[in-house]
Each structure stands twice: as structure tokens, then as C-alpha cells.
């Protein structure tokens, strides 16, 4: 009977495509929005993950994220270095600033000052130039997404002079990093340079980056640092998580995406539900005839289930495929989507939503079929 059920449905092109559209639309919208959501909030962690060498971040107790940090006195560095179990520690300065391009455009940037001696905190992957370039006078290194934002396409920014807070800065290299949540342009420079670029008071050091000695976990050493110095010390994963949590708690993003996902589900249920019940209504006499001829209610259930399953599977496949194409083509072409990936949970979650949709609409459709009395076919 299954092939009859399938043919009943697929032969009715209009409704079959309507059903596929409904499911595919929902699956696409939901998985695409969830993927963007996850990738967007994970950008709260990129500043941390862009520096793989440091597994401990030390900061003022009130600091919350790489971009929401209260500077500390420079003595903090030596305090951290003297804690037993710290293999090495180096300073980092992170601060907002404005640059003026040669064309006169004004742009907000994040200046990141890294240890003069070791350059710890400078990303490893260079698109153009090298680490040594940072030792040239007034040198800054720009992130690739920032470069794309600041300069026209195809333009080579190496050697370009910028006015950084009224001081001269020269771009000497481009690093490849995932952009932060705000996609602000990042300019890396030596710590001593950064002090000059970013005017300020006595306290300038945003973070101390540190690593645990062999045999100790980052968590153990972080606890020791806090006990010994009174400063806040977070492992890399904890601090990355802090950045993500900060976005979740302080923006309307979860609510907005939640609403879109809910709408995707509701619209899907509406389209699929209406089309499915239209299909059933068109075929109710035929179902009645089948019941009279001798098809049991169980077989009728299997027929409707087969129809729902087909619509669910194909519609889901189309939706997920379109979402994957959207995300991967976006990730490769637009800096806004740079580094976007699809976490494995999202297709799974979308499948669960599609299953719920199919169960609801299939059950509604089935109810009217089961209610049909076989005697009605003689009416």
C-alpha cells in the first residue's frame, strides 16, 4: 500500500511541491538562522582563541571580556611572573582608538599591544608580511577582515600610513584572524608603541597573558594567581566562554534569533498543515473507498505516515542543503561570514523541529481520514 500512498501524493504535483516548500522553507530558515546565531555569539570568543599560546588570562577583578576590561598597573606583570607555577607571563594592551585613512575616512579600531620582546599575542598566520616587520618604526599589523573593510577591494595596504589618534602608523603586515563580534578593525603593534598610540593614565595594562608550567593545569595555576595577587585569572576556555556569555546577556540577539526560528516553525506548520489537509480533503472519498474495500485503519495510518515521512525527508534534505550552500558560500565570499561553520547540533535540531512539524500536521491529517465512515462513499 505504501507505493499507492506515495503515488497519491507525488501525483498531485501542486500539493506535493507545496508541502516540500513548506518543510524546506522551515528547515532552511531554522538551520540558517541558528548557524548564524551560533557563529555570531562565538565571535565573543575570537579575541581569546586568536592567541593560542596563552592558556591563562589575568586581569583586574572587574574586567569581563577582552573588550570590556579595566587596565591594571604595570606592576601586575611582575606579580604574576612571581607566582609559583607560571611558566611565562607577558603584557597585553587592548584599547579602542580612531584612525584616519589617507582618504580621510574615520574608523574605530582596536589597538592590541603585544610584548616587545616575544610578540606573544600576535596571531601566527600572516597573509602578507611577517612578525619581524613589527620591529620597524611605527609599525602596525592589520587583520585581514579589517583591511577589507578599510580599503577598496584589490588594494594592497602594505606601506599605507594611517593617522592613529593623531600619531603616524604604518601598516607592515596583514594577519588572518576571525573577526570579533563587532568586526572592528584590529591593529597589532608592540606594547611600547601601543602606549604611545593610546593616550591614558597611569594604568595601561589590560591583561597579563600567562602559561602554566609543565605538570600543572591552567585551572590550577589560575587559582594560584588569584590567591597570590588578588587579580582575576581565567583559563582560555573560561575567558572565551565569558565573551560569549557577555553577548548573550547584553544583546537582543538570542531573542531576535529565537523569534525568527519560532516564526520559521509556525509558518512551516501553517503551510504544511494547510496543504496536507487540503490534500486529504481532496482524497477523502478515495480514502473512504479504500476503507470500504478493506484497508484497515492501521494500514491507513501507515499510508499517511509514509506520505508525511516522504515530505519530511525530502523537504528537510532540500532545506539543509540550501542552508549549507548559503553558509559555505557566505563564509568564502563575505568577510561578515568569515570562519562560519555549521555545528553538527544544528542539522540535528532542525531535524527534530521538522519531525515535530510532520507529527503535528500528519496527526491532524490522519484524524480526518480515520473519522471518515466507509459508508459515506455510498452517499
Amino acid at each position, binding site marked *: 500500500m505504501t507505493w499507492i500512498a506515495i503515488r497519491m501524493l507525488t501525483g498531485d504535483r501542486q500539493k506535493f511541491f507545496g508541502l516540500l516548500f513548506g518543510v524546506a522553507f522551515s528547515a532552511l530558515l531554522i538551520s540558517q538562522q541558528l548557524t548564524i546565531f551560533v557563529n555570531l555569539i562565538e565571535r565573543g570568543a575570537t579575541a581569546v582563541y586568536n592567541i593560542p599560546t596563552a592558556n591563562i588570562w589575568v586581569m583586574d577583578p572587574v574586567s569581563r571580556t577582552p573588550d570590556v576590561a579595566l587596565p591594571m598597573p604595570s606592576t601586575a606583570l611582575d606579580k604574576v611572573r612571581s607566582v609559583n607555577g607560571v611558566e611565562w607571563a607577558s603584557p597585553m594592551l587592548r584599547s579602542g582608538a580612531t584612525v584616519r585613512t589617507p582618504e580621510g575616512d574615520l574608523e574605530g579600531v582596536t589597538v592590541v599591544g603585544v610584548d616587545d620582546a616575544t610578540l606573544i599575542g600576535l596571531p601566527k598566520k600572516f597573509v602578507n608580511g611577517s612578525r619581524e616587520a613589527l620591529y620597524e618604526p611605527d609599525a602596525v599589523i592589520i587583520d585581514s577582515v579589517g583591511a577589507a573593510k578599510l580599503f577598496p577591494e584589490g588594494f594592497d595596504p602594505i606601506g599605507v600610513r594611517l593617522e592613529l589618534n593623531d600619531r603616524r602608523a604604518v601598516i607592515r603586515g596583514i594577519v588572518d584572524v576571525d573577526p570579533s563580534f563587532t568586526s572592528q578593525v584590529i591593529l597589532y603593534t608592540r606594547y611600547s608603541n601601543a602606549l604611545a598610540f593610546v593616550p591614558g593614565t597611569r594604568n595601561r595594562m589590560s591583561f597579563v597573558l600567562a602559561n602554566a608550567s609543565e605538570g600543572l593545569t591552567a585551572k590550577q595555576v589560575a587559582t594560584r594567581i588569584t590567591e597570590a595577587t588578588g587579580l582575576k585569572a581565567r583559563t582560555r576556555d573560561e575567558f572565551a566562554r565569558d565573551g560569549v556569555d557577555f553577548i548573550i546577556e547584553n544583546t537582543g540577539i538570542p531573542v531576535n534569533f529565537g523569534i525568527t526560528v519560532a516564526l520559521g516553525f509556525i509558518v512551516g506548520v501553517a503551510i504544511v498543515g494547510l496543504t496536507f489537509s487540503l490534500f486529504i480533503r481532496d482524497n477523502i472519498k478515495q480514502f473512504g473507498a479504500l476503507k470500504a474495500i478493506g484497508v*484497515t485503519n492501521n494500514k491507513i495510518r501507515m499510508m499517511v505516515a509514509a506520505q508525511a515521512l516522504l515530505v519530511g525527508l525530502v523537504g528537510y534534505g532540500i532545506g539543509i542543503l540550501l542552508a549549507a550552500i548559503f553558509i559555505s558560500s557566505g563564509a568564502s565570499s563575505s568577510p561578515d561570514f568569515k570562519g562560519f561553520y555549521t555545528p553538527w547540533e544544528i542539522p540535528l535540531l532542525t531535524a527534530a523541529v521538522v519531525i515535530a512539524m510532520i507529527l503535528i500536521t500528519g496527526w491532524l491529517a490522519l484524524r480526518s481520514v480515520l473519522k471518515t465512515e466507509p459508508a459515506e462513499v*455510498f452517499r
Partner: protein
Amino acid sequence: MTETRTAITINGIVKEFSAGSQMIRVLHGIDAEVRSGELTYLVGESGSGKTTMISIIAGILYPTDGSVSVFGQDIYSLSDNDLVRFRLSNIGFIFQQYNLIPTLTAAENASVPLVAAGMKRDEAVERGRDMLDKLNIADQADKLPRQLSGGQQQRVAIARALVHEPRLVVCDEPTAALDAKSGRRVMDLLREVALAPERTVIIVTHDNRIFDLADRILVMEDGRITHDGKEMPEH
């Protein structure tokens, strides 16, 4: 004349429908017997209860009271599922509106009872095709119902009712939509292909142009059988 014997026994059938708060009695305790090898007509004015009666005989409408025995089986003592299975293996239906599945070909439509009984698709459709051949529309076997004329669709419906060789065939108003000539041709066809010594054929009609083709006529009036004979009563 073929040999005949009792195939269906109808005992004290009462049927009531609820209309709002009260019950309307449509059948008033009907007793009858129907023999196999005969073409039996159930005739009467519109509203006299023919469709209700044939639905009860065919096992698709529970009577309020009374019993129906089909080939020795008291069908309303069966469980719901057993009654469905009984219909599947013993009864062929020809519905007035045909109720063919619009997206299946004629041969596939004709094969439905076999498929429902679990036969493999290819074999079932092949048998459906053979049945269409017997009804002289083999050349239409691969067409969809909407590509067929009304008369051809009816033949497909007849093929579907006979393909699994049921022992009882029921048919409600097969000629209602047809002109006199086509109506007679359908009745001739049913006599020819449906009637068999071991088979009972009951046809509901109020088409008085074709009464002469019946072996037996049961006349209904207001929910009662008022005449039972080979010919229509004289008025």
C-alpha cells in the same frame, strides 16, 4: 438458468439515525434472503432506504438491531478488523462516483484490492490489466482516470470490484448518470462479467428501464421490503 442457493440471510435489520435529539428509524426490521448465481435488484423510491440497506449488507454500516449472515458468517459479530478483512476478501464494491485514485493509472486502480491484500505490485497490476481486458478497455490501462470518459471510468471501477474475485458484488445506482442505452449496456456487462454461479450480485437502482435484466427484484418502500419476486409488481 444456473443453480442457486442462499448466500445472504438478513434477519430483523433495524437502522436508526440520530437527527438532533431524536432518532429516525430508516429500516423497520427487514428479513430477506439473497441467493448466489443471481442478479438481485434492490429498487424503490428515493429515500426508501436502499443505500442504507446495501451498506449494511456489505458490512460498512452497523445496523441498530438485527443480523446479516454472508456466506454463513454473521458479519456484525466480527471484530472491527476482522470485518475489514472479511470485506477485503469477500466483497467487491462499485461506487456511484467510482472514487478512483486520480494519480494512479487504470490498471493500478483496478489492482487496489489485490495490493491491499498484500500482493506484490507488479503481479497485482498485471491482474488489474487482465481484468480491464475482460471489460474491453485494455487499451486504456495506462491512462489516468481524468483521461478517460465517464463510461470508461465506470469500467475501471467495475474491474476494481471484480479483480480479487469476491463472492459478493454490491453496486449502488450504476446507471443513474447514464442515458437509457448506456445504462442497459452497463447492466448487460455486469450480467456478463460479474455474474457467476458462486457469486451474488446486488444492484441498487430506481431505473425502471432496466428491470427486465434482473433475476430477482426486492422492492423497498419506507424502510420495508414490500415485494420480492422475479418481476416488478403490477400496479
